[in-house]
């Protein structure tokens, strides 16, 4: 091979690499498929800013946050008669004419030190009162965080429910059976970051309750093993290395323990690992499959999937007494339970007429409600405010993330440009 030809190869490689890496940066983009029937109408005036162009458009981030909740519709900017920056510029009649119930305006300034200060005001157009005036500060890299903060405040003020726009998601991406990535992104899919890359499968990511660590299953040793990883430092620790299954890690609500699955004693059983003493205690004793543990809200019990009745169903065990009761009775496949933050709903994968959907069971009445109409739905993960859940599904032959509100009224999906996306895990509040 002569030298110039080799150079040509190098150039070609650089080009191919460049194209590849720019594709890999592709984000999950949101497509809203269903919202509530009578969404609250809010006008978000373009945020005031006199400086150089910013890398993020803050008002459109707030706009899409509120739209994505399904509970708001926004007034198009082209219909607005004025772009007020402060209260003195607000003429309520103009906004009432547009059918707007609320008006949000904001103005951004920069301190001599370079910090950005966003002052925002929310008005009730119908009763003509200012509901709040707040300020949020941040660096250039935190512009999206500042916008999500505004969304959280607006959402909570109007709906009475705490916003979850500042939260994150962790998920797994697979590009082939040889390329896997554990990813973290904002709850809207923006700013994806790689937490782990491997040519072996990565599974079952789970957040620590303080939002600082993620536990997951990685096959990098040639076998499944449970790891935990600190997000800030990237420091990892292997927690289990037993023969057979090492799976389904779930942190206890106080973060001191981890429920998980080991099959070292012959078949899959639920264990609890005390993270301080490193002691494992076996929770279930049954020849059937016991898996997918998740904690009750008080941390005194574990709910899990078991096929001890012949088919997978959901059970709850009280840790102190070992008393086990069956929670699901409708249908012949109920698995991977998650409790809503208020404890009122049990969310799970439920098979109906041979198709796997996400369903919610009312814990009081036992009534099951199917929330999704997509197929091969799995891995539901509930937002910390209990308003929405994210799940994995198939769309046009690819694994993507979908989201649905717990009352099934709001639906959206986050398709990825490439790769199969799966196993979303919604962070707690930070």
């Amino acid at each position, binding site marked *: 091979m002569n030298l110039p030809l080799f150079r040509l*190869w190098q150039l*070609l*490689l650089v080009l*191919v*690499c460049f194209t*590849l*890496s720019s594709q*890999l940066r592709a984000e999950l983009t949101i497509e809203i498929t269903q919202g509530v029937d009578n969404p609250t109408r809010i006008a978000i005036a373009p945020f005031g800013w006199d400086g150089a162009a910013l890398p993020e458009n803050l008002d459109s981030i707030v706009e899409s946050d509120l739209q994505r909740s399904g509970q708001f519709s926004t007034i198009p900017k082209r219909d607005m008669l004025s772009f007020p920056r402060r209260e003195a510029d607000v003429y309520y009649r103009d906004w009432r004419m547009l059918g707007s119930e609320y008006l949000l305006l904001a103005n951004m300034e920069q301190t001599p030190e370079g910090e950005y200060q966003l002052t925002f005001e929310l008005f009730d157009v119908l009763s003509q009162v200012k509901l709040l005036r707040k300020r949020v500060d941040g660096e250039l890299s935190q512009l999206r965080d500042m916008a999500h903060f505004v969304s959280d405040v607006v959402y909570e003020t109007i709906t009475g429910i705490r916003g979850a726009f500042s939260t994150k998601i962790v998920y797994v991406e697979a590009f082939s*059976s*040889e390329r896997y990535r554990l990813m973290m992104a904002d709850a809207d899919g923006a700013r994806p970051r*790689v937490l*782990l*890359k*491997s*040519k*072996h*499968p990565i*599974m*079952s990511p789970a957040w620590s309750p303080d939002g600082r660590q993620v536990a997951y299953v990685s*096959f*990098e040793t*040639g*076998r*499944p093993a449970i790891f935990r990883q600190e997000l800030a430092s*990237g420091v990892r620790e292997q927690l289990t290395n037993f023969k*057979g*299954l090492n*799976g*389904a890690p779930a942190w206890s609500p106080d973060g001191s323990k981890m429920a998980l*699955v080991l*099959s070292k004693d012959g*078949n*899959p059983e639920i264990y609890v690992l005390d993270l301080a003493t490193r002691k494992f205690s076996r929770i279930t004793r049954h020849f059937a*499959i016991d*898996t*997918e543990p998740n904690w009750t809200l008080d941390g005194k019990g574990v709910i899990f*999937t078991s096929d001890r009745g012949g*088919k*997978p169903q959901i059970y709850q065990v009280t840790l102190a007494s070992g008393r086990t009761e069956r929670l699901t009775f409708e249908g012949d*496949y109920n*698995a*991977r339970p998650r409790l809503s933050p208020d404890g009122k709903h049990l969310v799970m*994968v439920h*098979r109906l007429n041979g198709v*796997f959907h996400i369903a919610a069971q009312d814990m009081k009445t036992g009534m099951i409600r199917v929330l999704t109409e997509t197929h*091969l739905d*799995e*891995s539901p993960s509930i937002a910390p405010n209990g308003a929405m859940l994210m799940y994995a599904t198939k769309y046009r*032959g690819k694994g993507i993330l979908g989201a649905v509100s717990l009352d099934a009224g709001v639906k959206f999906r986050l398709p990825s440009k490439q790769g199969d996306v*799966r*196993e979303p895990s919604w962070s707690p509040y930070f």
Partner: protein
Amino acid sequence: MFTKALKQSMGLAVVMAALAGCSSTSTTDTAATDSSATASSVDSSAVSGSSMDDSMAKLDTVFYFDFDQSVLKPEARAALTAHAAQLKASPRSVRLEGHADERGTREYNMALGERRAKAVRDFLVLQGVDSSNLETISYGEERLASSSSHEMNRRVELK
């Protein structure tokens, strides 16, 4: 002719290796092995054409199962009986990889894949194979054999 083909395939291997290299900026130590694995897989596909001509009678090494089941089918039992005879005559370490189809939840499918791998292991042990030579591992639905056929995915691979 031959040298031209060789040059082409070498060039391809270089591209593949470099691609694998340039796309991995990970903090884990898999990057180095990644690129070598990619390069060698190109090599092996080049020789697979000739090995197809071999009409040596080979035993099945993949055994299929019904949905949510881990019961061995009759054809699997026949093939495994022959495997057991071979393994008793010339013992070697065998890895039994259990898999599930995409339906159902991932961790439950991990358990199902393990149950299938163990069904194969138990059968071989019953036939007299030394259990210390048999390792079972489940991949659940993490490594599908087919993107269209559930039947092809519910399997145990003997390696």
